[in-house]
């Protein structure tokens, strides 16, 4: 069977949770053929694969969203001449109506014969009338120019992206809602093939957080963007044949956002616990570790501040930051600065990209201080290695460490995000209580072995794919 995995801003160009998940999943299924449809911003910044593609992946198609700049404005705009039904669907899309007929809409937009290219459509009178009406109905007291450009720049890459061809496959599997989900919806409509959605983090929520934080967007139009992302996410929920998420917390949110319960399942991440049977090396230092990419979302700065507090109490402690530092050079620079300002140069080590097995045996406590997470593999790996965790209360961390949905007991401490004091408190508690550490380690390993094995993950997806054979 040929499965088309639709990924947005991840595999195979950007490493991270979703990419690793894809990379592992396809390797477990030699019986299937995979095609990757990768949605990326532009070819200049992302041209190199971060992964060696396994043979199950027969092709990678990359559609760039921002290459609309290669299009040329035409001197004469061709007004779309389309049926009433198609106009209706465009109207529903602009107005974010949940009653939209996605099949008609995606067909209308994806075919240049209907509306021309994205520039032609966004310059057309039809589009002008649509957004004029939307403005008068919903935003009539706001600045019109800003509204106009906001909605234009919002749709410019979307329509461009929808006009790329989509590879044919037997199953479409998008690994997020958002743009990838929208393309999935379009593929399902075009080829009449099943659509599976696996959502690691809740896309619309994550975008909402980005938007609220963004400084350049006017407040009035933050609403527009947020509504847009919720709208397309809901579209994917209502269209997909299977809606999978990784853990309970996200499952609940999906239901809240309108995902139909009968199509929802939870398939957690998995690892092979046998790979993590390690022999701890005992030394007289206290080693705190964190396996992460040095990027802002992991909130390394807070971790360093927290560790300062730990080190003040326990001078023999040190911090190992295990993972690539080259993904956000500016941020890495900031981290290094902070380390030297806090006089931690001798006790904080950035290892760079290494095999984590080299360092795992030395570590007493692992920590994860992200401000946002899905289901972090590093927690599974840490627990399988018999190392207790201090993690922030994001994503599935609480489920994994406290076992809110099973009987294996506590395997680590949950602390609030962006809180150096609390994080330091948690780390110190574990460092000072070897017995508690041992207890947690035992619980953690049992949980991972029972619930979060790679085998289970593979079996679940095999079953899911076979359902549509």
């Amino acid at each position: 069977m040929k499965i088309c995995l639709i990924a947005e801003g991840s595999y195979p160009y950007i490493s991270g949770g979703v990419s690793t998940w894809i990379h592992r999943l396809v390797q477990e299924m030699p019986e299937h053929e995979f095609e990757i449809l990768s949605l990326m911003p532009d070819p200049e910044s992302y041209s190199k694969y971060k992964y060696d593609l396994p043979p199950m992946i027969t092709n990678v198609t990359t559609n760039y969203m921002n290459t609309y700049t290669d299009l040329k404005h035409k001197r004469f705009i061709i007004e779309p001449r389309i049926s009433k039904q198609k106009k209706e669907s465009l109207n529903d899309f602009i107005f974010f109506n949940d009653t939209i007929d996605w099949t008609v809409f995606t067909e209308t937009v994806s075919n240049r014969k209907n509306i021309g290219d994205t520039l032609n459509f966004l310059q057309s009178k039809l589009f002008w009338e649509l957004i004029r009406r939307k403005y008068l109905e919903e935003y009539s007291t706001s600045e019109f120019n800003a509204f106009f450009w906001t909605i234009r720049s919002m749709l410019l890459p979307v329509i461009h992206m929808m006009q790329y061809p989509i590879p044919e496959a037997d199953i479409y599997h998008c690994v997020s809602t958002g743009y990838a989900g929208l393309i999935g919806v379009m593929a399902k409509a075009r080829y009449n093939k099943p659509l599976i959605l696996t959502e690691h983090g809740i896309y619309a929520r994550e975008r909402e957080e980005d938007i609220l934080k963004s400084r350049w967007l006017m407040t009035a139009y933050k609403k527009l963007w947020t509504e847009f992302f919720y709208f397309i996410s809901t579209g994917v929920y209502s269209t997909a044949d299977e809606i999978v998420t990784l853990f309970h917390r996200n499952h609940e949110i999906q239901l809240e956002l309108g995902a139909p319960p009968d199509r929802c399942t939870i398939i957690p991440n998995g690892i092979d616990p046998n790979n993590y049977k390690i022999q701890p090396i005992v030394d007289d230092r206290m080693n705190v570790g964190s396996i992460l990419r040095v990027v802002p979302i992991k909130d390394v700065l807070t971790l360093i501040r927290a560790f300062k507090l730990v080190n003040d109490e326990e001078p023999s402690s040190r911090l190992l930051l295990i993972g690539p530092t080259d993904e956000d050079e500016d941020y890495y620079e900031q981290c290094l600065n902070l380390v030297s300002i806090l006089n931690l140069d001798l006790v904080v080590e950035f290892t760079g990209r290494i095999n984590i097995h080299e360092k795992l045996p030395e570590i007493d406590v692992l920590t994860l201080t992200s401000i946002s997470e899905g289901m972090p593999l590093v927690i599974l790996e840490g627990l399988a290695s018999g190392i207790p965790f201090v993690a922030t209360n994001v994503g599935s961390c609480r489920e994994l460490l406290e076992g809110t949905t099973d009987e294996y007991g506590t395997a680590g401490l949950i602390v609030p995000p962006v809180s150096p004091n609390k994080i330091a408190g948690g780390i110190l508690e574990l460092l000072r209580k070897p017995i508690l550490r041992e207890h947690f380690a035992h619980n953690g390993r049992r949980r991972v072995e029972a619930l979060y094995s790679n085998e289970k993950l593979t079996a679940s997806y095999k079953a899911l794919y076979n359902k549509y054979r």
Partner: protein
Amino acid sequence: MAGIGFTLKKLFKEESFSQRTKAYLYSALVAAGPWIAAVLTVNALVILSQWIIETNIQRDLFMGTIVYSFVFSQILTAPWQLVITRYISDKLYLKTYEYIKPSSIGLTKIVGLSNFIAAFLFYMNKELPLPYKLMSIMLFVILSMIWIIMVYLSAVKDYGLISKAYILGGMVTLGLGILFANYPLPFEQFQAGSNLLFSYLSGMTLTLTILAYTFFGNFKFGNNLQFDFLRILDKFPSLFFVGLFYTLGLWIDDILMWFSFVGISIYNTYLYAPLYDNAIFLAYLTIIPTMVLFIVSIEIEFYDTYKKYYGLVNGHGTYRQILISNKEMRRSLYRQIAYTFEIQALLSATLILMAPQLFFIFGGPIIVRSIFQVCAIGALFNIFIFVIMLVMLYFEARVHAVSITICFFITNLLFTLYFIPLGLEYYGYGFMFSSITTFIYASLISLRFLRRIDYVTFGRQPLFNENRQYFFTWLSDRLNARMRKQVHIQKKVRRWDHEANHNDAS
């Protein structure tokens, strides 16, 4: 987590509509002003010469030289005028003043060379004495340069100095005319005509010198990107064609008339039709009031509403506010045009009706009078073609402006060709019907355009700045690169010199 980062480009951009609008306006003003001034000088000189020169034929030769120099230097430079106006106003807006002076040199090089070649080819095989030919070619090139520098000076807006340049030039012309009439320079052939031409050439050279002096006094600094302005042809090729077709349209009926039976040939060099040329020149004089009135009323009333509209569009206006100011702006524009039209129509009608008396008083031929009457109706509509075209340019509707000028050129060509065989009593009808037809066309498309102005202002804006780089960008880069190389070499030579001197000294 997955998700394309929020790296959306800010597409918000601000543009100075107001700066540009004024620029178009002033360039129109300065295009007409000096033209009239120059024509007045020529006529004064001719009247003066009537008392002095006995042989009519030499005066006709001189007039032929003047007419051809004017007409063809206009046709050959007009296409550049809007192009360079746009370039200057963009550079002024961006405050990159250092581009302005070099572009004037670059453009002068291009126009000077091409017009010199054109004049050279024209006079090469003509049976005229060499000094006369040389002076004619020089006059042609100097007039071309004046047209160009006037565009640049419209940016400076020192009208006092500009008028002084013309008055001084005119006075020198007339002074020399009188002087040489009494003590002629010893040209071997065509003494009288050559002396007239020499006087006029001297006057114009002085005018050009003063203008150039004023300009370079205002723009002292510059980079060496003399041909950078050519890039604008890739971006707005339409501006070039607006100027080209409008000027061609203005002259095509004259040129066709030269070949009709009223055309006269002078020394196998010039073919022209004094009857028609004079009539249409007088007809154009009748529309001066519109020019002045419209320019003044645009300044005072329309301009404010225009600024307000674009202020709201580019700024914080809600759509309702934009709609209201849009209506105000359009109403003001229509009112201005209607008002100007009423006055102009009244004036034209008066002049047409009084033409018999006026011509009787000033002793003009009856045939010129009847052509004048027809052409004055044409001119009335023609000036409003010009006004509408200008308005279209204000609204960045360049394609509309081009289509208006093409319409004018083609209808004038066809109607004139149609009416010439019908005989003398139909002379001028071609121009008149062409002007009326184009006026109707221009009114219809501009009304349609203005009704859709909101959509055009917003909906038709490009989604991003497209880098239109085609032939002219390439050409501009090549020419500029050559310039830089030269400068580089000069610098090197200077350094060697310096080093050599230094070594000598030590």
